């Protein structure tokens, strides 16, 4: 671990005309940091009617399991202030049909794909990874460990550092050595840094932060839980501060690991918050329901937001909020006089 974390914006005089939006992390080189959040874009096909799906960084597909799954009973969602609860229960076509139809479509279309996988046991995750390895045609794997572990009385993998690590280990073992593997963590834990530490040690290339927060709504008319599944995952702008805090904490603990940030991103400045907190790329989920073009729109807004702040590249903005506070001088970004040694690069 010796890469620089704090990089100064190279242009300090007024908005740059163009900002290099390349997101380089985990060995990937994406033309945009914008991704779709798993479960909020299916496999990209429907959204391609609204914007060129190949223009964003990539599509993170709905978490796929080995077998076809019907999901949970309805109602599956409830709108909440600046967000929603969902309890879909990972409805999906199963791995075979996903590969034949969804992945094939994405490849034909020329879209970059991050395949999200889920399982009820660590072995299931492993089998999915193995099968995917033989098929290829995707850039990275996102491991959705926010699902119940059948072997642990349904406790969510992501809430236990040992089970979380087990899953990551199995996926790693069954994947190509160069395949980037992102463990997607749940914010419903006492210490997300501990879980991040555990999955990184287990071989994860990076982490995706965050999955939904467990929530509940009671319908005042029926006076019963609004969702058939009783509880559901809270998403949308309502969870954004929680998500930014998680990205910040994990970045602070791990200056170098790749982080995909998400949780309530609705605009370019929302995306910027995650980038400044330490995300190398960001996913847009619930906002797609509000605006099906959101990932594409936000790419443009983020580019403008970066230019306005004097950044000439996205890479320069990553983790910028972690720079040391300097009380003796003006903020370097607004000052013409600052020089390279105004603030330090940290390295180990």
């Amino acid at each position, binding site marked *: 671990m010796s890469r620089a974390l704090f990089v100064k914006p190279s242009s300090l005089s007024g908005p740059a005309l163009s900002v290099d939006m390349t997101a380089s992390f985990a060995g990937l080189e994406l033309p945009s940091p914008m991704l779709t959040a798993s*479960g*909020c*874009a*299916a496999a990209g096909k*429907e*959204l391609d*009617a*609204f914007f060129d799906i190949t223009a964003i960084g990539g599509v993170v597909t*709905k978490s796929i399991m080995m*077998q*076809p*799954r*019907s*999901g*949970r*009973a*309805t*109602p*599956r*969602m409830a*709108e909440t*202030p*600046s*967000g*929603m609860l*969902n309890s*879909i*229960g990972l*409805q*999906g076509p*199963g791995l075979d049909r996903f590969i034949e139809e969804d992945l094939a479509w994405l490849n034909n279309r020329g879209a970059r794909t991050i395949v999200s996988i889920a399982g009820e046991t660590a072995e299931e995750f492993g089998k999915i990874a193995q099968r995917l390895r033989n098929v290829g045609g995707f850039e990275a794997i996102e491991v959705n460990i926010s*699902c*119940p572990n059948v072997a642990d009385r*349904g406790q969510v993998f992501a809430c236990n550092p040992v089970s979380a690590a087990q899953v990551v280990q199995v996926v790693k073992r069954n994947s190509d050595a160069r395949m980037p593997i992102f463990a997607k963590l749940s914010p419903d834990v006492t210490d997300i840094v501990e879980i991040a530490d555990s999955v990184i040690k287990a071989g994860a290339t990076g982490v995706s932060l965050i999955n939904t927060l467990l929530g509940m709504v009671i319908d005042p008319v029926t006076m019963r839980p609004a969702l*058939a599944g009783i509880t559901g995952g809270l998403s*949308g*702008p309502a969870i954004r501060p929680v998500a930014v805090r998680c990205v910040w904490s994990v970045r602070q603990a791990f200056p170098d690991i790749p982080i995909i940030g998400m949780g309530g991103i609705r605009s370019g400045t929302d995306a910027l918050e995650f980038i400044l907190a330490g995300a190398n790329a960001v996913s847009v989920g*619930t*906002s*797609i*329901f*509000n*605006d*099906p*073009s959101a990932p594409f729109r936000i790419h443009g807004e983020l580019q403008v937001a970066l230019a306005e702040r004097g950044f000439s590249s996205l890479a320069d903005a990553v983790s910028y909020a972690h720079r040391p506070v300097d009380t003796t001088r003006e903020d370097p970004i607004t000052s013409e006089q600052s020089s390279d040694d105004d603030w330090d690069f940290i390295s180990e």
Partner: protein
Amino acid sequence: MSVTLQVSSEVLDVRRAGSYFVISLTAPGIAEIAKPGQFITIAMGGEESSMMLRRSFAIHQVQSRGVYGGTLDIVVSVHGKGTKWLSERRRHDTLAVVGPLGTPFSLPKSPVSCVIVGGGYGSAPLFVLAEQLRDRGCRVDAVLGASTEEKLFGVLELKRLATAITVTTDDGSSGFKGNVADVLPELIDRVNADVVYACGPMGMLSAVAEIATRKRVFSQCSVEEAMACGIGVCMTCVLPVIGDDGVTRMVRSCTDGPTFRGDRVRWSDVGTIPEDTYGAPVSGVRS
């Protein structure tokens, strides 16, 4: 794949009709290609709104040409905060609209006898349908039902379009005292119906589909399930439907529907995952 557009619409007019609001808006591109039974979604409350989810509305009337280009009408029943906000829009306000969405009603190839059944504002998508059925030389009989007179929508208009119309209200304030299921069997027999089209509350659709199936009449029902995305990406809007292969699947009502064959929806199982559904939990023990 069908074309779907995301446009900024201008409100042209908001007027009352009984207990509903009829909103006319510009919908460039959408109005021109919309088919009967399709719907639009509208974002609620502006860019910073705390209502993240769009609301769905059946396309009621369309005008593909005119001073404003393509325009369309929707019928809004105020239900909660989103529809209340919408009812308070005024001329020149803008709305973020996506459409046309969903699978339309399928139309008969030959001039057959059709019955259209609307419950409350569920009659909204049936007007364009009735016109197109008439254009094909079909006989069109209409049944409109509601709890009370003010919740009937479009009785006068539909009188013009349909061969004959029957009105029912639960409280007897207008027409037959009772519901559409009370008058439908006799009507199907009398007009020798070949097809029944229905849109309204789930309970009504279930009853209509059951009657049609019992009488061996083809039925098409337009369902109303809570939707988060309306475009097929989130899987919130599913219900159990029997496929051509006889297998029950949880299908999306926003893309595979909202119109379904009445005999294919497992009405009494809506809200559950029937045990024999494709991909249903095997043991019953599942998260």
